[in-house]
């Protein structure tokens, strides 16, 4: 029996984000909110572990009230329970402040063996929450997992680094962050989607996890976002016209002039 906590983040579908050329702002209106990709892999892995060893899966998400949708998806995939951490006072949290809330929440759950999360979130790509949470909870961390095997309280994780693959051993309880390669997340069946509404979902505020004002949101952050601007890339934007042969000739000549092609 393994009690697993899976961290689930709801993000805007980043591929659908666009910059409005006149207002120079990112257009978020009408962009769907989805479960961050690697978090789906984390859920899938938790479900596979449960199928093999038995146990319970609790999906936790911190976010606005709409993040309940992400948890519903987690429940439909196979999580047993869900906890939504939502409070207006959480707004403006950096990775440290997010990890503080998650740490308080998992401490409240107490009885867990394993925390699984995505190695990064699709919108921020900060890679921070997992290691920060592990440090706060004094847990060993296994990052970039491509395989997880449990034998009793022993855990063996295969990890993917730039130039090598590692097999690492440790003990439960611990935190594992996964990459997309680890598995193919299942699509919930219609039955499972319908059944998911009957599964328990708790909603916790800052008070429920006993955090004080100074630990929350902007006040509780160590990092400060000074400003953000839409990203721009200035390029020549020369379209080489003509028949294929002519266009290719123009291209090779231009690249030689740029000094990036020999000949």
């Amino acid at each position, binding site marked *: 029996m393994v009690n697993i906590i899976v961290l689930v983040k709801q993000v805007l579908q980043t591929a659908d*984000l666009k910059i409005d050329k006149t207002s120079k702002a*990112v257009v978020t209106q009408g962009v769907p909110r989805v479960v961050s990709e690697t978090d789906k892999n984390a859920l899938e892995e938790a479900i596979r572990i449960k199928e093999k060893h038995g146990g319970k899966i609790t999906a936790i998400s911190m976010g606005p009230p709409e993040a309940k949708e992400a948890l519903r998806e987690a429940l439909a995939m196979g999580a047993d329970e869900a906890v939504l951490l939502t409070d207006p006072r959480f707004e403006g949290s950096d990775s440290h402040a997010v990890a503080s809330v998650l740490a308080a929440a998992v401490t409240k759950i107490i009885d867990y063996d394993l925390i699984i999360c995505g190695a990064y979130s699709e919108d921020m790509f900060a890679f921070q929450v997992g*290691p920060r949470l592990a440090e706060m909870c004094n847990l060993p961390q296994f990052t970039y997992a491509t395989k997880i095997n449990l034998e009793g309280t022993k855990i063996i994780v295969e990890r993917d680094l730039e*130039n090598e693959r590692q097999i690492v051993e440790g003990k439960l309880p611990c935190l594992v962050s996964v990459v997309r390669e680890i598995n193919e997340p299942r699509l919930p069946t219609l039955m499972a989607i319908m059944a998911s509404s009957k599964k328990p979902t708790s909603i916790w505020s800052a008070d429920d996890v006993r955090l004080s004002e100074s630990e929350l949101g902007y006040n509780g952050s160590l990092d400060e976002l000074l400003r953000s601007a839409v*990203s721009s*890339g200035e390029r020549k*934007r020369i379209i080489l016209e003509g028949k*294929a042969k002519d266009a290719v000739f123009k291209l090779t000549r231009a690249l030689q002039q740029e000094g*990036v092609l020999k*000949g």
Partner: protein
Amino acid sequence: MAQEKRDIWVFSEQPQHAFELLGKGNALSEELGSDLVAFATTSASADEYIRHGADKVILVNHPLLGEFQVDTYTDALSELANEHKPEAILIGATRNGLELAPRLAERLKTGCVTEVTRIELDADKKFLLMDRVTMGGNLVETHISRSKPQIATVPKGLFAQSTLNPSHKGQVIVAEPTIKSPTTKLLEKKSKEIKGVKVSDATIIVSFGRGVRKKEDMIMVEDFAKAVGGAVGCSRPIAEDLRWLPEEQYIGLSGQKVNPKLYLACGISGQIQHITGIRNSKVIVSINNDPKAPIFEFSDYGIVGDLYVILPILTDAVRQLAKN
């Protein structure tokens, strides 16, 4: 109160990456009038860091630091940082660096900005302005850290290596921080076989996306890459969804960030995700049959046309040039 030293520290387990951090660190420490300090685990690398511009090297020669491991390196660096109170720590954003930095930052109760795209001192030289790209590449955020040390992880290739100066002198400080036994044990490691040139090291990259319709057609791109002497890269769906190429060859915000002299995008629509990975290329060329493809907005040269027609002609043309 004693005056703050405001030293800039650098760490990467990859020496070539550490030299790049020394390059940037040198500029920052000069502006601050402070020391540039590297962290080393062998005296040979300590000497090398000094030749690459470090004013000081903190050398910790400890058996538990032989192989990078997040527990032991967090123990060592956190104790040293608490003792010496550096202004900032620049960490190479390898996967090791990316799991170390937030854990170290949390132990030191300080901020951390990962995968920066720019680091500069503010006008009053009070803090570091650290930029990073978010929201699928659409936003550039500027962060500061409210506490010290300010920690940033720096992708490979962002900064030029410091110049090697064999006569540069520096001080080696031998330290013995307390390092606990790690909570995890490395059982096995296997090097990855990477065919040809790695995209992160390549000066020319030929990259393809969904415009290549079948896996077998990749040969067309590979032939061209060979003719032009470049590495083969791809967009995210090719590696993550179709898995035609390993993740090491996928270029984009969440994959490799590259800075070649010449980047050729074949049949890549140019989602901002991808653009973010190639923005530091010198010249960008794209071939796409859709004249409205966003990639053309981010290219220096574009050809609107069928990849399956253009690429073979281009391959021939490049081969001819090489012959002459």
